[in-house]
C-alpha cells in the first residue's frame, strides 16, 4: 500500500517530527497536536498515525498473514559461503584470532563449570553455542563504544581484551577484581574496555543503554571533534518480555538515540521455551512496531554477525542517531547456569542434535579449513595452549587474597557517611572480640583495613 502523503504544511512538519531530525523548534512540536482533518480526504490525519489511509474493508491484521522475517546468513552450517556478495573484510590471521577467542571461551566454560561442581567457586554460566554473537559483534564495534551486557557475553569481553587474570580475578572475587569482590561470578565489568559491569536484574540495562546513547549524541553535539560512538546493548529473548525492553526501545526511538540492541534468541529462558515467552514473530517483529530498523540473523554464523553489526553501527550513527535492533537466532546448548539441570525440561537428544548439527565454532572452523588457514594440528595446538593459559590463571587467582574488608563499606556513596564509619568500627570491634568467629586474615590487610 503506497502511503499518501498529506499536502498540509503543518502536517508535513508534524510528520518530520517523527524522525526528530534536526531537533525540533517549539513551534513544530506545537504543530504536531494541531493537525486537522480536511473534508473528504482519503488519508487520515489523526495525530497518532500520520500516514494511515482510509479503508472501507473491515479487516483485522493477523500475525499469520505475514511470513516470518527472514534470517540472514553468510556461511551455512557446512562452512560454505551462501551470500555471494560476501568478501571477508579481514585477513586470515585476524579470523584465526577471532576463532581462538571463541575457542578460549568454550574451553574456559568447561573448566569453570567443573570447578563450580567441585565447589571451588560459587556459581558459573557458560555461553556454549552463542560464542559467535559476542565475539563477532565485539570485533566490528569501536573499542570505545560503551557496552551493556546481560551475562552470557563472555566472548565480548575476551575479544575486546579482557585478560585471563581479569576473568579469574572476578570469578574468584579476589583482591584484583575490579568489581572489588562484590558481585556474583560472571558479573564481569571493565572500565578500561568500556563494558559496564553486569547486573543480575534482567533488562534493566536496556533503558540505560538508551540513555547512554543519548549522552553520546549530546556530547557530539557539544563537541564536534568528539569520536562518533554508539551504545551497545545485549539481552536474551526472555529479558525482552520485561517492561524495561519496551521502555528502552520506545525511548530510544522517540529520542533518536544511537544504540545497537542485540538480542540473543537462544530458544530458552531457563526452562521456559519461546512458545511460552511470546506468540509473535520473535523479537525482531517488535522492532518495526517501535519504528526501529531491524534485522534477524543467524547467530551461529560469525560472518553474518559481523556484517550485520558493522552495518547496524553505521546506521545508528546516520541522521543524527537512531536505534537499530538485531535478533541473533541461536540455541542454548548448555544448562542455563550451574544451578540448573536443563534435562529436567528438554530432551537430551535435542541438545545433542544441536551440538552435532550446528555450532558457531565448528562452522567457522569448516570455513577456515576450506580456506586453508586452519587444520587439525593447529586446532590441537590452540586448544592445548589455551587450556594451559586458563589453568595457570585459575591457579594464580585461587591463591590471591580476598579484597580488603573495608571495601564492603566503600562506594555506597562517594564518601563514607558517618553511619558507615560507625558501622565499620562496630565490625572491627566484633573481629577484635571474637577473632575465632571470622576469617579476617583471608582478606587483604586483615582486619586492619577497618581502622578509621
Amino acid at each position, binding site marked *: 500500500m503506497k502511503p499518501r502523503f498529506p499536502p498540509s504544511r503543518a502536517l508535513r512538519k508534524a510528520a518530520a517530527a517523527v524522525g526528530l531530525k534536526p531537533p525540533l523548534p517549539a513551534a513544530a512540536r506545537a504543530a504536531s497536536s494541531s493537525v486537522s482533518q480536511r473534508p473528504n480526504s482519503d488519508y487520515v490525519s489523526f495525530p497518532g498515525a500520520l500516514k494511515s489511509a482510509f479503508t472501507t474493508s473491515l479487516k483485522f491484521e493477523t500475525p499469520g498473514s505475514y511470513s516470518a522475517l527472514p534470517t540472514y546468513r553468510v556461511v551455512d552450517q557446512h562452512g560454505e559461503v551462501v551470500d555471494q556478495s560476501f568478501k571477508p573484510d579481514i585477513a586470515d590471521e585476524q579470523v584465526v584470532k577471532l576463532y581462538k577467542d571463541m575457542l578460549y571461551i568454550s574451553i574456559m566454560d568447561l573448566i569453570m563449570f567443573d570447578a563450580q561442581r567441585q565447589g571451588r567457586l560459587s556459581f558459573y554460566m557458560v555461553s556454549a553455542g552463542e560464542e559467535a554473537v559476542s565475539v563477532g559483534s565485539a570485533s566490528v564495534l569501536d573499542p570505545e563504544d560503551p557496552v551493556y551486557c546481560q551475562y552470557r557475553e563472555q566472548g565480548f569481553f575476551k575479544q575486546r581484551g579482557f585478560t585471563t587474570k581479569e576473568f579469574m580475578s572476578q570469578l574468584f572475587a579476589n583482591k584484583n577484581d575490579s568489581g572489588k569482590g562484590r558481585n556474583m561470578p560472571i558479573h564481569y565489568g571493565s572500565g578500561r574496555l568500556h563494558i559496564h559491569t553486569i547486573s543480575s536484574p534482567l533488562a534493566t540495562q536496556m533503558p540505560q543503554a538508551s540513555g547512554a546513547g543519548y549522552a553520546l549524541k549530546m556530547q557530539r553535539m557539544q563537541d564536534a571533534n568528539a569520536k562518533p560512538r554508539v551504545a551497545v546493548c545485549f539481552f536474551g529473548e526472555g529479558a525482552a518480555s520485561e517492561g*524495561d525492553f519496551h521502555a528502552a526501545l520506545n525511548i530510544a526511538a522517540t529520542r533518536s538515540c544511537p544504540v545497537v540492541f542485540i538480542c540473543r534468541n537462544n530458544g530458552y529462558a531457563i526452562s521456559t521455551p519461546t512458545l511460552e515467552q511470546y506468540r509473535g514473530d520473535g523479537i525482531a517483529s517488535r522492532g518495526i512496531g517501535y519504528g526501529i530498523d531491524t534485522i534477524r540473523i543467524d547467530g551461529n554464523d560469525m560472518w553474518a554477525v559481523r556484517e550485520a553489526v558493522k552495518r547496524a553501527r553505521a546506521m545508528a550513527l546516520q541522521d543524527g542517531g537512531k536505534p537499530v535492533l538485531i535478533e541473533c537466532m541461536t540455541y542454548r546448548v548448555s544448562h542455563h547456569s550451574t544451578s540448573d539441570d536443563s534435562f529436567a525440561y528438554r530432551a537430551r537428544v535435542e541438545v545433542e542434535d544441536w551440538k552435532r548439527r550446528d555450532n558457531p565454532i565448528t562452522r567457522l572452523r569448516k570455513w577456515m579449513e576450506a580456506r586453508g588457514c586452519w587444520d587439525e594440528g593447529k586446532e590441537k595446538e590452540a586448544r592445548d595452549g589455551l587450556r594451559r593459559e586458563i589453568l595457570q590463571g585459575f591457579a594464580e587467582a585461587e591463591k590471591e587474597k580476598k579484597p580488603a574488608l573495608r571495601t564492603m563499606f566503600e562506594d555506597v556513596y562517594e564518601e563514607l557517611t*558517618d553511619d558507615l564509619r560507625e558501622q565499620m568500627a562496630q565490625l572491627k570491634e566484633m573481629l577484635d572480640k571474637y577473632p575465632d568467629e571470622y576469617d579476617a586474615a583471608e582478606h587483604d590487610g586483615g582486619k586492619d583495613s577497618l581502622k578509621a
Partner: protein
Amino acid sequence: MKRSLFRHLGAAQPAAQTGLPPRRLARRYSTHPPNAKLNLPIDYTTTPLLAHSGRTSALGNSKEIPAHVRDGPAKKMNLFQAINDALGIALAQDDNVVIFGEDVAFGGVFRCTMKLADTYGADRVFNTPLTEQGIVGFGIGLAAQGMRPVAEIQFADYVFPAFDQIVNEGAKLRYREGANGPHAGGLTVRMPCGGVGHGGLYHSQSPESLFTHVPGFRVVMPRSPIQAKGLLLAAIRSNDPCLFMEPKILYRAAVEQVPEAAYELPLSKAEVLKEGKDITVISYGQPIYTCLSAIQRAEADLGISAELIDLRTVYPWDKQTVFESVRKTGRVLVVHESMVNAGIGAEVAAAIQEDPDTFVRLEAPVGRVAGWSIHNPLIFEKFTLPDVARIYENIKKRLDY
C-alpha cells in the same frame, strides 16, 4: 498512568453554568470546621518560616547562604518558581545537565520547567514517552556517561514502576562497578509529593521512607522556596544520586524573597529552625508549618519552649543535630505525613533510644504524629494527615508524662 484530571491540583473549579443546584453544602473535600481554634489554615503570608520582605527567613540558619548571595538581589518566588530558577541555573552553568520526564517540555504540569526548553533547547529539556521505569533507567544511562540528568516523575505516587531502576540499578551502580568507575552520581530524580487536600489515593503519597531503606541515594525534601533552590542545586551537583521530593501543596502557597544568585544548601544536614528547651519537634516538608503553629499555641498555653528541627535530608540524615537537641530537651516528637509504621519517625526514634548519651536524657517516650496506617482517602484527608491539634496534643502528652 495518565493523570490529566489532576493537571492543576492547586485549585478546585467552581461548578458554574452546569445546571446543578446552587452550592449550599460544604465543599466535597476536606475543609476546616467553623469553630476550630487549633486546626486553622496555615497562613503562608505571615508565617515566620518564610522570608516575606527580608532576604532570609526569620527562622533558621541564614548564615548557610553565603553573605554576598544573601545581600545580593532577591526576587519574590513561590516554590515552583524557585525550582524553575534552580533548574535554569543548573542548565546555564553546566552543559551536562539535561531535564526530561512526562510533559516537561511545555513547562510541566506544575510549571516547574517553564521556558526552559525555549531557553536551553529541545535537546536538553524534553518529553519522554510515558514510562517511569524508562525515565529513571534512561537517566542512569546518561549519568553513567558523565552527564547530570534531572529526571521528573510527575507524581511521587507514580515512582513505583521505577522502583527496580532506583533500588537495584541507580543505588547500586557505584558499588557494583567498583574500580571500573561509572556511577549514577549525576542523577537527580524530582517528584511532587504529599497531601494537597483532594489528591486521593494517587496524588498524595509521600514514599520517602521506602527510599531511606535503600543505600546509595540521598533523599531530600525542602520546606520552602529558598530551601528548594539551594537544596536542588546541591542535589544536582552532588556526586551521589538524589531523590528530590517537592511538597506540591507548597508549589504556589509558599512565597518568599529568594536570592537570585546561585547558592547551595548542605545535604544530609538538618536545620534548627527555632531553639527551645522543653521538647524537640522534628519534621520535614510541609508539616514543618503545622508543627510551628502547634508549637506557638503550646508555648502560649503551657508556658514552655520547643525546639523545631527540619531534617531536610531524610537519608542519610543528620543524627548529630537531633541527638544534641534531644540531650538538651529530653523530649521528642517526630511528625510526618506518610504512614506511621516504618516511617521516618521509626528510624529517628530508634536512633535516639539507641544512642547511649541521648537515651539517658530522655524524660518521656519518643512520640510520633504521622498518617494513620491507611491509604490517603479523598474525603478523609483532614483526619489522617498530621494537623495542629494532634501535634499540640502530643506535645502536651510528652510534657505531662
